[in-house]
């Protein structure tokens, strides 16, 4: 299907479409800054020019860079990421700087992290010519993922914030969240692993029948080892040792998605989900942090839960829900609401600030932008000719989409709040950097997938010359 489509149209670079979209994305960002400033203080924000020049200039540089080093890349990836990053930046500026709240950092640090991320983006696009080479080191990647995940457990290095031990402190630089990068390493490992083990995971099976009716194709017992390892690791390490439910959910979800993409067998998903939910049900009365999260989710409006002790109450969640309700369809306008009522709104709960100030209309734009980003990633997986790249691109885009779901589902009380960040939008240096790294990988892979193959010798000119 995808082959049919990609042969249907002549290959086009569409760099100018990217430029137009990028200019619009920068325009959206500046407009957001201006609106926030006008509404809050009645004047254009004094830093508008500096922010505009830095942010706009950097993203235009990224565009020029793509023009030279990845000219066939998908034209939408960079503008979509830029608009998300820009909206997040404007919102953080509005939440922290415009209200004079300097305790929680400022938009300037987010801008610096954006700059760092874009430089890393450029470096990856430049140096990683063939993403395929990552396939060579699956087990090193797996090991580094595990090390990154366990780093915060080292005494002296690790930091516990809000009950979850997932930060490490680097003297002079502040704190980092290594699990963000572990996700990428894990996707690389899974892609490489699935490419080699795909056949055995997808073909060998035992058919379970009741009478003549086929119920399910069960994998052989020994083939379930990778699943068991992933499951055990996610459950034991993440939930029991570090209380980091979000990362655990993300990693296991990504693992399930990738095994499904590789084998196209739903039995893996059924087994995986059953094991995961079974473990969650068994563990949640035992692990304090876990049961708190479930309790604040199910009984959020219970006065006892709402007024519970610090870190174990549902204040953040409930206030976020009311903030989004306050926004309604059109929102209060950027700067017009009171999103500061939600504690720590600039991190995980930034979506409620958008819900309050941009309303449903603006939230849908953010959701659509995220969805389009995921769609472009899946399209790369379809268009690519290499198995590893297919796995890698679909893994990364699933991770981006699933992460958005986990966060937004958490703040809208669809699932328990788990503590992850919306890619590109939320405040947090490591998360932003990790998102831009994933974008760089997607850009590089889409460039290689969309680049036209060298002309076959059978085609056109060459044959005619010989026959003459």
């Amino acid at each position, binding site marked *: 299907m995808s082959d049919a489509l990609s042969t249907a*149209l002549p290959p086009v670079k569409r760099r100018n479409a990217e430029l137009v979209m990028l200019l619009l994305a920068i325009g959206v960002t500046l407009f957001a800054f201006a609106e926030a400033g006008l509404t809050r203080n009645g004047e254009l924000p004094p830093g508008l020019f500096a922010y505009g020049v830095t942010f706009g200039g950097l993203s235009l540089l990224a565009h020029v860079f793509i023009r030279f080093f990845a000219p066939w890349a998908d034209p939408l990836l960079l503008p979509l990421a830029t608009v998300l990053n820009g909206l997040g930046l404007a919102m953080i500026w509005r939440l922290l700087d415009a209200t004079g709240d300097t305790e929680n950092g400022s938009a300037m640090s987010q801008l610096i992290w954006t700059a760092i991320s874009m430089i890393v983006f450029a470096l990856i696009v430049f140096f990683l010519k063939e993403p395929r080479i990552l396939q060579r080191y699956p087990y090193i990647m797996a090991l580094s993922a595990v090390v990154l995940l366990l780093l915060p457990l080292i005494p002296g290095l690790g930091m516990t914030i809000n009950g979850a031990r997932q930060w490490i402190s680097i003297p002079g630089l502040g704190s980092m969240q290594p699990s963000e990068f572990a996700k990428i390493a894990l996707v690389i490992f899974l892609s490489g692993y699935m490419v080699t083990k795909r056949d055995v995971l997808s073909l060998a099976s035992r058919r379970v029948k009741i009478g003549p009716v086929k119920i399910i194709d069960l994998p052989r017992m020994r083939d379930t080892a990778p699943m068991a390892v992933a499951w055990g690791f996610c459950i034991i390490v993440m939930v029991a040792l570090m209380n980091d439910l979000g990362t655990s959910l993300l990693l296991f979800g990504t693992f399930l998605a990738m095994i499904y993409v590789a084998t196209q067998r739903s039995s893996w998903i059924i087994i995986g989900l059953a094991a995961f939910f079974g473990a969650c049900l068994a563990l949640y009365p035992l692990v304090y942090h876990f049961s708190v999260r479930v309790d604040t989710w199910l009984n959020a409006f219970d006065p006892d839960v709402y007024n519970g002790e610090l870190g174990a109450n549902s204040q953040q969640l409930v206030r976020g829900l009311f903030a989004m309700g306050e926004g309604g369809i059109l929102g209060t306008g950027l700067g017009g609401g009171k999103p500061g009522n939600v504690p720590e709104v600039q991190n995980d709960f930034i979506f409620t600030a958008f819900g309050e100030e941009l309303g449903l209309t603006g939230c849908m734009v953010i959701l659509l932008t995220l969805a389009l980003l995921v769609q472009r990633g899946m399209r790369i997986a379809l268009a690519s000719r290499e198995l590893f790249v297919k796995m890698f691109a679909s893994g990364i885009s699933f991770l981006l989409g699933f992460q958005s779901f986990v966060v937004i589902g958490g703040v809208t009380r669809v699932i328990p709040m788990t503590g992850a960040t919306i890619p590109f939008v939320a405040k947090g240096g490591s998360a932003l950097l990790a998102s831009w790294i994933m974008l760089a990988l997607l850009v590089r892979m889409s460039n290689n997938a969309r680049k036209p193959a060298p002309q076959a010798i059978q085609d056109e000119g060459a044959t005619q010359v010989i026959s003459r």
Partner: protein
Amino acid sequence: MLSDLTLMLIKLAFLAVLWLFVIMAVGVIRTDLFGSAPRKTKRARSPEPRRPKAAPRGRRNEPRSLVVTKGPLAGTTLNLSSHPIVIGRAKDATLVINDDYASGRHARIYSDNGRWVVEDLGSTNGTYLGQQRLTRPQPVSVGQPIRIGKTVLELRK
């Protein structure tokens, strides 16, 4: 301070710009999927090799039309001229067939000095002349079935 009305207008304008961004992004994807405007169609066809303009006419066995005998478009007839015919699902194909097993630009039938030749354009599922899958351009004679997916075509006098 600005009046509430101005702020309201700014707010609505901002939401409109946000949606403009999304709609334009979808537009880029649309062009990516279906190709844009007739301008591109022209560009798509230009790299095809130019065929001699007027094929010598008057041979006894010269076909005059291309007929679809099986498939969703059965019964369609196309008059042959000296121009090549591109068959496929893409909008810019001469004969657009709505067949799940056909590629965008699946095959080309052209006249080479009065002899009609069928050429597979790197399709996914292949083009069959009689029972054989095409590996290189092959001359077709009148009445020989050309199969593309579920569609069968032949040349008629």
